[in-house]
């Protein structure tokens, strides 16, 4: 499938998928990469190095700062897929690029594309927004 490039880049990893939105502040521990929102279905999962698929973020405006810390600390997901553009996540990747010369790829999908994603399957993300699942 082909999505909208939000922040371009190549990545590969195991998918970690939820239809529930997440606040990274209070929801993502940048020290460990663990999802720590105890009310979220992915609570306890480690997202580091995986292709995280969430419809969008919610809640705190500190979500961006948490993802920036995770990118710097090497605990961020390999890439993030969302339904539509999530500006909080996009900003973290853009600032990381300005600050450290590295970013994580972000691709925005349509709802029907998102629905076929399954936790555990492998995904390859291309800089052109192409998402291959196998």
């Amino acid at each position, binding site marked *: 499938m082909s999505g909208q490039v939000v922040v371009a880049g190549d990545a590969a990893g195991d998918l970690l998928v939820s239809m529930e939105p997440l606040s990274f502040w209070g929801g993502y521990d940048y020290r460990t990469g663990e999802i*720590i929102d*105890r009310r979220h279905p992915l609570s306890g999962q480690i997202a580091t190095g995986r292709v995280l698929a969430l419809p*969008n973020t919610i809640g705190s405006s500190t979500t961006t700062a948490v993802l*920036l810390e995770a990118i710097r600390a090497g605990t961020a997901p390999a890439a993030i897929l969302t339904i539509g553009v999530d500006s909080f996540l996009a900003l973290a990747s853009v600032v990381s690029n300005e*600050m450290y010369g590295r970013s994580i790829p972000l691709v925005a999908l349509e709802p029907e594309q998102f629905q076929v994603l399954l936790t555990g399957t492998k995904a390859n993300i291309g800089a052109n927004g192409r998402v291959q699942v196998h």
Partner: protein
Amino acid sequence: MILSDYDHALLSGAHGPAARMAMSIITRMAEIQGARELLDISQAHIDSTIYMGEAGLEFAERLAGWGAKVAVPASLNVSGLDECNWREWPVPEDWAHKAERQMRAYQSMGCVPMWTCAPYQTSMAPKFGQQIAWGESNAIVFANSVIGARTERYPDLLDICAAITGRVPALGLHLTENRGGQLLIRLDNIPQRLQEDDSFYPVLGILVGRLAGHRIPVISGLKAAPAEDQLKAFGAATASSGAVALFHIVGVTPEAPTLEAALQGRAVVEEHTITLDQLRQIRRELTTSAGTKLDMVVLGSPHFSVAEFQQLAPLVEGKRRHPDVPFLVTTSRIMSALACERGVLAPVETFGARLTVDTCILATPMLPKSVRVLMTNSAKYAYYAPGLLATQVVFGSMADCVQSAIEGRVVRDDTLWQS
């Protein structure tokens, strides 16, 4: 995208490296979000002040080191530290020094050190229709909804870029046509006495946030006339369980004199009816702890206002908290000074309460590890504490919190929640 001469000058570095980086980030975000141009803002509120780790500090110090200055009045949100009193708590020394460096960095850019997440209750509150760039989810939703100022949901790091450049992408809630309600939420048969109670608003807010997601909800059928702090608690809750940046309450908020006005004359495409049963369910879910064990009571997220101190004072007057249950109020220096001036701080302190200013329990590592069960009247605390602090929480009204602190165990009056 069309950029002005000023935008180009900033991008080229003519106003220095800090303004260049800030404008580069603003224009890249504008492209990602599909804006066609930028617009001027006349005020900002900076949430990037919360120290969390090395990256946020490096970002702040890089800007400060380059001599960054804000182009518009900018207030500072809570920081990672109660600057004067942190040593009274087990805050690690190393954390404190880094949090202090982050505070200094933002002050050096010319921001006003309000150190509060309720800037809308200070002299820096914006005006109706004013174009602003605010961070802090609860402040954003209050500024848009209750005041009628215009801000997008600015995440940390973008807020300071907006303040340095005075420019933001012209989109979203900055534009009149995007401020109309997108779903209608009707209150059905909710008892008036419950609607007048403080504990109603955080619970309603959590449910509305969940239904609305990132859309603009219109609430109709509210019979009570909510006070400012009730709207504050409602908004903070909608911005915790959802990504609400603007709500309308028909007959209450400034852009919703009528349902038609709130919807900007458009037809209703999605409608929900909220029942007392649903609200009871949300109230139950806000509490994660079973039993009556209680380690601490915390009020004040968003920061406690002077009106809330005035409400708390008669509840605690002549009483004393249980020796094993600390009672903490998180607030701003401004509000604690006002409460002192008006004579409502003394009874609170005599009761055995302590104050923390500049920050809150979610933003600074101040709580002793022995605190396992927290009680609060704040939906925001109740929502985030289990993940951020790994504590259990009990949600109750302000009166429940006081009574529990006196008895040393959780007690809640459920009368209003029974039909």
